[in-house]
């Protein structure tokens, strides 16, 4: 569907050069929701803007259905962009046009027949749940409602892909949830592929199938959300995953505990959480596990549990208990103290 091949982008302002993207390659399959996460300045916006050539890569190819956008003529590029919808952090609606006109005007400008415009606008305003607000101006809408209008505007183009540049970053948690629900529905019911970028782990957890992690312009890790969550490899990914699951145990406590045993974090997927593995290791080995903190994250496909435990006991015995846990598909990580 979308394929970025060795994409690099360097911004030159005066004598200063910023390498916003360094040789990034990624492939987004039809029908999936692919999210890229990274801290501010990592190059996420530049990346997603390369996908529809709002930003032209310095090097590399951007292929949509096998067609390299960087080689298209202006008019062909415009046509292809019709297949790619985009939503933004700050909604980017016309302030001087009603909700209806905001969705209708791009269709008019794209020469969609009149009767079809009305049909489409009504259809998509209904899908986003704003048919009652048709004649209202954006200034009278909440942030979430504005984003819904922007989504309706993008959908009304009947695109195959939807790009989302931090679409929920300006919204409060409740509104974020409802917009994420809407994006999930758009993906499932309309079959639209979604490519999103965010700095919020929650967004990735809740709606993405696959995730990429960006750091200083590079895609440092990529995989299914479950894999990346349970077995993060790159230090940057671990920062994201474990920052969330840091459980806020004071350092002084950690220090005291690591003197009397080993402090480890356990990560397990869905089914594993049904098995009482902690009870099992107490029985099978001569160790005393005590739980310091824990939590369960609901991912799109399944849930991931995380526990911070202290294993007290003879070193060899603790080692065997850990091997047993790993055999049960529990990821065990030493917690630095």
């Amino acid at each position: 569907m979308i394929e970025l091949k060795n994409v690099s982008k360097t911004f030159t302002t005066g004598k200063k050069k910023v390498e916003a993207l360094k040789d990034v390659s990624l492939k987004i399959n039809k029908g999936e929701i692919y999210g890229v996460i990274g801290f501010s300045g990592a190059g996420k916006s530049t990346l997603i803007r390369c996908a529809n050539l709002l930003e032209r890569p310095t090097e590399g190819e951007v292929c949509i259905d096998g067609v390299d956008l960087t080689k298209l003529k202006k008019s062909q590029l415009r046509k292809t962009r019709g297949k790619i919808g985009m939503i933004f952090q700050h909604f980017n609606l016309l302030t001087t046009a009603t909700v209806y006109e905001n969705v209708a005007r791009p269709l008019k400008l794209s020469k969609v027949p009149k009767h079809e415009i009305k049909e489409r606008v009504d259809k998509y305003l209904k899908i986003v749940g704003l048919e009652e607000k048709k004649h209202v101006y954006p200034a009278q809408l909440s942030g979430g409602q504005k984003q819904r209008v922007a989504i309706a505007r993008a959908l009304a183009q009947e695109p195959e892909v939807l790009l989302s540049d931090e679409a929920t970053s300006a919204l409060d948690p409740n509104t974020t949830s409802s917009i994420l629900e809407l994006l999930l529905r758009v993906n499932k019911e309309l079959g639209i592929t979604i490519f999103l970028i965010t700095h919020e782990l929650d967004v990735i957890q809740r709606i993405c199938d696959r995730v990429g992690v960006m750091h200083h312009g590079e895609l440092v890790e990529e995989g299914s959300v479950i894999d990346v969550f349970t077995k993060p490899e790159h230090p940057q990914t671990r920062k994201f995953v474990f920052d969330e699951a840091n459980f806020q145990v004071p350092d002084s406590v950690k220090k005291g505990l690591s003197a009397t045993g080993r402090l480890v974090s356990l990560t397990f997927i869905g089914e594993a959480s049904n098995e009482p593995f902690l009870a099992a290791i107490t029985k099978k080995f001569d160790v005393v596990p005590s739980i310091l903190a824990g939590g369960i994250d609901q991912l799109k496909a399944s849930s991931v549990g995380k526990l911070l435990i202290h294993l007290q006991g003879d070193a060899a015995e603790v080692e065997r208990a850990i091997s047993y846990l790993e055999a049960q598909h529990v990821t065990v990580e030493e917690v630095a103290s």
Partner: protein
Amino acid sequence: MIAEFWTEWGTDITEAFWQTLLMTGISLAISILIGLPLGILLVMTRKGGQAENRVFYSIVNTIINIIRSIPFIILLFLLLPLTRALIGTTIGVEGVILPLVVYTAPYIARLMESALLEVNKGVIEAYESMGISTSKIIWSVILREARSTMILGLTIATIGLIGATAMAGLVGAGGLGDLAYQYGHLRFEPVVMYVVIIILIILVQAMQTLGNVLARRLRKD
């Protein structure tokens, strides 16, 4: 007393009033026709614009700055030979349109430029991302979104223009300024001058109010 004054000066004042409106109207229309496209071009050719063009931008930018730094009264005399050559006369309403346009068009270009620059870049980008052509974006997005600010800008330009037409009285252009100068100053009829001043104040107030009302009506946020 008022009746007496009006029988004596009524025709002159009415005629001068219409001349002022005519001068303002014609030069405003021509200045918009020149200034608005120029404003659009400035926005498009500036750095990061849709049709970035350093050379064009700096040339137009410099010319506008130069003209804008010449006081109208000087421009008026400076342009006399050109006016004579182009229009054939330097007096009356026709004789003063050229300097008024030269004075106002660059001002309008500036005002339009700043109004257009105020339009949210994000909205323009959203339309680009939907594959909509630059010319359509200019007409249906940028100009529409900027309408309110543009109206306010044009109001300012119009008021400046009314002031300039009054000065044009000095070269015998007719209009309220001419009347005030010829009779109020040269023939010492101060009442005529006061009446003209009051009419000008009312005219300017009316313009500003009209502009504000229109702009407010177009503004939806």
